């Protein structure tokens, strides 16, 4: 029987054919460490009395609370810079951006690579064909120290996206629909293998990152997008790098992009996905556009298109946080930034922003936020009873203008 893409990648790494269910130890091509666990990472290296085996394969990104919000964080980040220098590890400092966006921009995830990151959304690297997976501080320290990690070769779920997105519908809507269909535990321990067909291969790298990013919300170990379209122009994709036609999948799911409508994930579960039309009218206090899920230039442009010539509702705070310094520069160069500012947006330092409720937009009791991020868990962005609605940058922008949850199309009708 043939192999899935996950089996192919891990077979090439191990040097013999492997099957779903086997435990393997593989060489790791890139170890990504985020600021919030760097202290634990260093402590574990010290405990092992080890230094990174291949320092050039380790990157630390200061993004989860950047710039430092308090003294504890400032001390932790100072420690990162000192350790980085001492061990010869790459450090991406305050303002460079969200870890996953930065690693992709820096070419530190490539087709066929194993990338382990101390952040659950490390599945994002699958957008370019890297086997990206999230782990805790101990696993990450062991991977850095040994240059290897252990993995159970995952079973795979095949998700086929077919056709082209209608105007006003985005990769975020497609990703939320995928999570709805798979559920929050439907791909646990598995790889989600994403096939883009019949027009869907036109999705950009950034849009593929949104899809791969959200596979972890279905429990996935990795989210692998089969290379096509612009990925083939941007990366050297090995000849063997495709799943076999007779590969075995635990489950196959089809999503017709051309029939999709704007989606929103309703608190407190990411897989609680509905059409925006079903929950529109919810009064909004804050709108957050950014993160590893939707803080890229195409996302900022999509928001600017909706916001052009409009103003944010007086009771709404619109926070826009570009996913990286490159994104911010591009938005400054092409005028996107000015459009956002004229509409009343506040621009934050590239990084994770308020996604996990630590700074730069923490929610007060009872507040409602429309966010382009990836988790709407209870208390995630602040008060336990604050509500987070996950949506696309277009829906987020339209909701900022209206002051309640809505789509750009509804906004047109109301104002026509």
């Amino acid at each position, binding site marked *: 029987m043939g192999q899935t893409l996950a089996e192919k990648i891990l077979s090439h790494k191990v040097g013999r054919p492997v099957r779903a269910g086997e435990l393997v130890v593989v060489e790791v091509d890139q170890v990504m460490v985020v600021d919030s666990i760097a202290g*634990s990472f260093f402590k574990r290296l010290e405990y092992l009395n080890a230094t990174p085996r291949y320092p050039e394969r380790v990157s630390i990104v200061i993004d989860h609370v950047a710039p430092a919000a308090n003294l504890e964080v400032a001390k932790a980040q100072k420690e990162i810079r000192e350790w980085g220098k001492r061990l010869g590890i790459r450090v991406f400092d305050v303002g460079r951006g969200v870890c996953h966006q930065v690693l992709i921009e820096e070419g530190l995830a490539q087709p066929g690579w194993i990338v382990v990151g101390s952040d659950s959304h490390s599945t994002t690297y699958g957008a370019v064909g890297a086997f990206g997976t999230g782990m805790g501080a101990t696993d990450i320290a062991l991977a850095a*120290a040994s240059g290897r990690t252990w993995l159970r070769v995952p079973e795979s779920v095949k998700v086929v996206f077919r056709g082209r997105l209608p105007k006003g519908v985005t990769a975020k809507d497609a990703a939320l629909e995928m999570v709805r269909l798979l559920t*929050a535990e439907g791909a646990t321990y598995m790889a989600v293998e994403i096939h883009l067909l019949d027009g869907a291969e036109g999705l950009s790298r950034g849009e593929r990152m949104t899809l791969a990013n959200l596979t972890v919300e279905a429990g996935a170990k990795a989210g692998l997008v089969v290379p096509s379209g612009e990925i083939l122009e941007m990366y050297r994709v090995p000849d063997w790098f495709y799943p076999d036609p007779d590969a075995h999948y635990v489950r196959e799911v089809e999503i017709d992009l051309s029939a999709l409508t704007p989606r929103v994930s309703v608190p407190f579960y990411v897989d609680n996905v509905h059409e925006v039309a079903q929950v529109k009218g919810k009064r909004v206090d804050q709108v957050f556009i950014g993160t590893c899920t939707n803080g890229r230039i195409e996302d900022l442009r999509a928001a600017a298109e909706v916001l052009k010539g409009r103003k944010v509702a007086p009771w709404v705070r619109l926070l826009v946080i570009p996913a990286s310094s490159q994104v911010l520069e591009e938005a400054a160069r092409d005028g996107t930034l000015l459009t956002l500012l004229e509409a009343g947006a506040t621009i934050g330092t590239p990084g994770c922003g308020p996604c996990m409720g630590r700074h730069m937009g923490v929610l007060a009791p009872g507040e409602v936020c429309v966010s382009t991020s990836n988790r709407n868990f209870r208390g995630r962005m602040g008060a336990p009873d604050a509500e987070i609605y996950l949506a696309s940058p277009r829906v987020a922008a339209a909701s900022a203008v209206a002051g309640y949850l809505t789509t750009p199309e509804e906004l047109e009708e109301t104002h026509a």
Partner: protein
Amino acid sequence: MPRVWKFGDQINTDDILPGKYAPFMVGEDRFHLYAFAHLRPEFAKEVRPGDILVFGRNAGLGSSREYAPEALKRLGIRAIIAKSYARIFFRNLVNLGIVPFESEEVVDALEDGDQVELDLETGVLTRGEERFLLRPPPPFLLEALKEGSLLDYYKKHGRFPGE
């Protein structure tokens, strides 16, 4: 006698330790005091070493933050029983040396506040006169757990179990 702290399905790592109470936010010596701060604020004060946590389906989904289970370890939790686990959380438990038992029946049978005894090696759980048998963890994990945790195993042997 150890008591059971029972939670429902889909308990995520933000529930176990909200992001704003990460060690690098509040200090290495304090973060565990915020375990379940939103869901059960009394937990960190009342939990006793050796108590057993019981979760439903997809335990520990969400963020990879190892400091969530680490907070539980600090509070003396040495075993968890769940119907099923999210994968990063499962790995983190093994890495920290908290034994992850899995059983639909036992989770359904246990009530919050139950007084129980659990033998971590044999998986025998007793509640009064009742006896339940939990399946011990797979060999790879057991080997690691024998040394305390996967970290301890690697420190001692310089390799992963079975390598």
